[in-house]
């Protein structure tokens, strides 16, 4: 495989997983914080969230496939086999990961933060943003988990992306193709790039966490 194509595939992987992580984090972070403020969301809420972490990616892929296929309810959008469909699939998978990480990371600090806000004369409405600000480290870990889940995704990514060269091929699906073709060296090289990206991104998040 040429270096230019490898760069293209790696960049696409980053963009798709990055966009999916952001898309998932937008609702997942507030949800995790809100559940933490409400005492953890109750056993049912937590159970649902933790079950979401175990969502089988091929089931998510199949569900989205049926939704986005031209003969499905959202077929008119023409989204099947586009990078956007992959972003959606990976976001669905990253969402419970991020929310659960935020919840478990902030739950223990809720009372502490609430007392702090009150002692400074603040209102209950200010507890959530303060909790958010005081939990930056947890946030970094949650984003790392979500991004890690998204960029290593292969089942759903193949089903809704289709592994189209120069369009929806990402590192994981390219590894499958190269292995299928018996090009094991190329597959291994792609795997190394994937590992490298995961290391760099989580490394950046660890630096953020430290500040």
């Amino acid at each position, binding site marked *: 495989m040429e270096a230019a194509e490898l760069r293209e595939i790696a960049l696409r992987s980053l963009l798709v997983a990055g966009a999916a992580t952001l898309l998932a984090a937008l609702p997942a972070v507030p949800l995790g914080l809100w559940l933490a403020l409400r005492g953890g969301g109750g056993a049912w809420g937590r159970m649902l969230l933790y079950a979401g972490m175990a969502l089988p990616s091929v089931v998510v892929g199949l569900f989205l496939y049926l939704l986005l296929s031209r003969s499905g309810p959202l077929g008119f959008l023409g989204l099947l*086999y586009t990078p956007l469909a992959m972003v959606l699939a990976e976001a669905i998978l990253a969402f419970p990961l991020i929310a659960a990480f935020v919840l478990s990371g902030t739950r223990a600090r809720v009372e502490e933060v609430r007392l702090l806000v009150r002692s400074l004369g603040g209102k209950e409405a200010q507890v959530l943003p303060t909790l958010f600000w005081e939990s930056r480290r947890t946030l970094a870990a949650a984003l790392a988990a979500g991004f890690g889940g998204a960029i290593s995704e292969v089942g759903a990514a193949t089903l809704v992306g289709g592994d189209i060269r120069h369009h*929806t091929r990402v590192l994981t699906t390219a590894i499958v193709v190269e292995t*299928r073709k*018996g090009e094991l060296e190329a597959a291994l090289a792609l795997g190394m790039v994937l590992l490298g990206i995961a290391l760099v991104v989580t490394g950046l998040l660890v630096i953020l966490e430290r500040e």
Partner: protein
Amino acid sequence: MRLGAFLLPFFLLAEALRLATTTSVYDSGLLDQLLPPFQKATGIRGEVLAVGTGQALTLAARGDVDAVLVHAPDLEAEAVRQGHLAEGFCLAQNRYLLVGPPKDPARVRETPTLLEALRRIAKTQAPFVSRGDRSGTHLKELALWKEAGVTPAPPWYLESGAGMGQTLVLAAEKGAYTLSDLATYLTVGKKRGLVPLYDRDDPLVLNQYSYYVAPKSPRLGEARRLRAFLASPGATQIVAGLKVEGQSLFQPLRGRCILPVGGSR
């Protein structure tokens, strides 16, 4: 790399011609050779989904692809009758091979016919890997077992449920026999040490690849232009020129089918 051109597919959706093909024509590199000159000539970008023939026909029926390149005449005829495919064009042919480990435990090398070879594999219970994925090759294999009067069954009969390349890799690992198209055998199986044990000109092992447009596709015009391109002398030359170690992978058919297929032509 220009980032703008790269980001384009994120925003401009569904602008390319989408083609579902068998894994064999993709993995052999044939489409990587055909699509760039097509894009150069027409400005239409072709996107390939490499799946089995069965899945390619399902994608066409659901309206998720604009054209297919497949190799299972019976299934094709059925899809044409149901209105999912039209305007068939026989692009190329090669043949199926029975490949296996060089040690040849069932001694099929000595058999005069392919059916006899299959019977011998069944009798000696030598391992055989089937695609098991409703691909053209899988359907061909099932038809051959039927003709040989054998009902293959575990434990010696394994189903990989995977593409041809992966199935060949599995066969090599297990020291098993398998039925393969010539192109994928030469690009994948040979490297893995499998050898062709039945490789003769025999009407039984003809393998014909046909192109169809999906009549309900919103990009029917583009699909027809690809059909016209595939019929051009330039495309014929590309098909004939694809070689591995000096051996041609496909012989162009230029629309002259060798196996009967239903539908308009």
